[in-house]
């Protein structure tokens, strides 16, 4: 296959850099416009990973930091597919997650929220998609927590998700929210995204068919990475 460019990132569906209601973005957003580049080999390549990079239990947050018991909280399965904008699966790509525990507390030396650390919960996991782009994690549902922005801001329950794709141009970090959470509409971080459909794309849907009866409830979360051109026409990416 000849190398081909990725579709332009649709900046109208992403948050702008400067989003004044999310205060930390104010000094952390470039003033000048980004310089738009057509893809070269530097952008259409990217790191590759294999099962050798991770361990079998890495996608089980209920067990991967257990110290003699299971973590407290609502047991959930998060699953879905990683697709590109053409609807094709993205196989063998690394998906990493991190989250607060059921009380809304992160296992991080900089988190000082008064909710307690859970001795059996680390809060991070990773997995590779299979040949169909499918992935899953087992974890406990994270709690909402307060954060300093306005005096009284609460983050909706969320899981941070990092995805690589096959090209550095596809690299993405996003957050997964839960269907029906009333805090989604008041969160200045969620609301940095200017498009209601785009926000809905970050909301995992309750998936009763995928639950494990008497054990764990399930949420479905499909992730879409940038798609790429077909190579029907010579696009002279590599020259001559």
């Amino acid at each position, binding site marked *: *296959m000849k*190398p081909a460019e990725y579709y332009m*990132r649709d*900046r109208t569906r*992403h*948050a702008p*850099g400067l989003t004044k209601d999310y205060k*930390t973005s*104010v*000094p*952390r*957003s470039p003033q*000048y416009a980004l310089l*738009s*580049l057509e*893809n*070269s*080999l*530097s*952008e259409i*390549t*990217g*790191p*590759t*990973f294999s099962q050798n990079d991770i*361990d079998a239990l890495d996608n089980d947050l209920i067990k*991967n930091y257990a110290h003699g018991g299971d973590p407290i909280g609502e047991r959930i399965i998060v699953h879905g597919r990683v697709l*590109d*904008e053409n*609807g094709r699966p993205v196989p063998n790509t*690394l998906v*990493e*997650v*991190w989250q607060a525990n059921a009380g809304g507390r*992160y*296992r*991080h*030396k900089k988190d000082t929220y008064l909710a307690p650390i859970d001795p059996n919960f*680390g*809060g*991070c*996991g*990773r997995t590779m998609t299979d040949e169909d782009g499918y992935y899953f994690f087992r974890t406990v549902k994270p709690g909402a927590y307060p954060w300093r922005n306005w005096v009284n801001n609460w983050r909706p329950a969320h899981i*941070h998700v*990092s995805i690589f794709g096959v090209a*550095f141009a596809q*690299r*993405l*970090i*996003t957050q997964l929210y839960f269907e029906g959470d009333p805090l989604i509409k008041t969160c200045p*971080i969620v609301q*940095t995204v200017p498009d209601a*459909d*785009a*926000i809905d794309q*970050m909301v995992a849907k309750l998936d009763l068919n995928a639950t494990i009866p008497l054990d764990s409830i399930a949420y479905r979360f499909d992730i879409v990475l*940038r798609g790429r051109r077909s190579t029907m026409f010579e696009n*002279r*990416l590599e*020259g001559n």
Partner: protein
Amino acid sequence: MQYLKETPSQTAGPYVHIGLAPKAAGFDIFEQELGWDIAGPNAKGERIRVEGCVYDGTGAPIKDVMLEAWQANTDGHYAHPEDGRGVEDGFRGWGRVITDFETGLWGFDTVKPGATPGRNGTTQAPHINLWIVARGINVGLNTRLYFDDCDNSTDPVLNLVEQVHRRQTLIATRTEDSKGVTYRFDVHIQGKGETVFLDI
């Protein structure tokens, strides 16, 4: 035509280390953390260290940033099937680094990359592709690090920067001492000396 749309980006937040560098968050969970060894033991070429700081618009160092690096080997080959020209065994070309929580300084060890093919038969000067995420950054920022001891005059990307003096924001400065070669690359997110960021 019905296409899907890319999932929106969200900030990596202040606790990015839990997922991507848990030792820095203060706990040990994975057998192997990823991204600390960019070049591997067999890489040819000049061993270098790259160091810098990321500053916010007020001039303060950002202490909760994470950077990822993506680079070619000394021959200008990427470790990727769509390059296909091959790299040394163990050369990955990808790294992940976080800042010191007290100072905001970050650094990684690698080899200096070679020139890579550009579009339309051009050649790109040696560079390291960088991706920067942090609390307050809604969509990860892409930029490139070039080297001040290379000929960057015909690089097709640097030459796209309209304001010629801003090209300097993409060029790292070389120093040598008894410990080896270090390139310094400071990133200014906003304001005076603002780094050129790329929409790739």
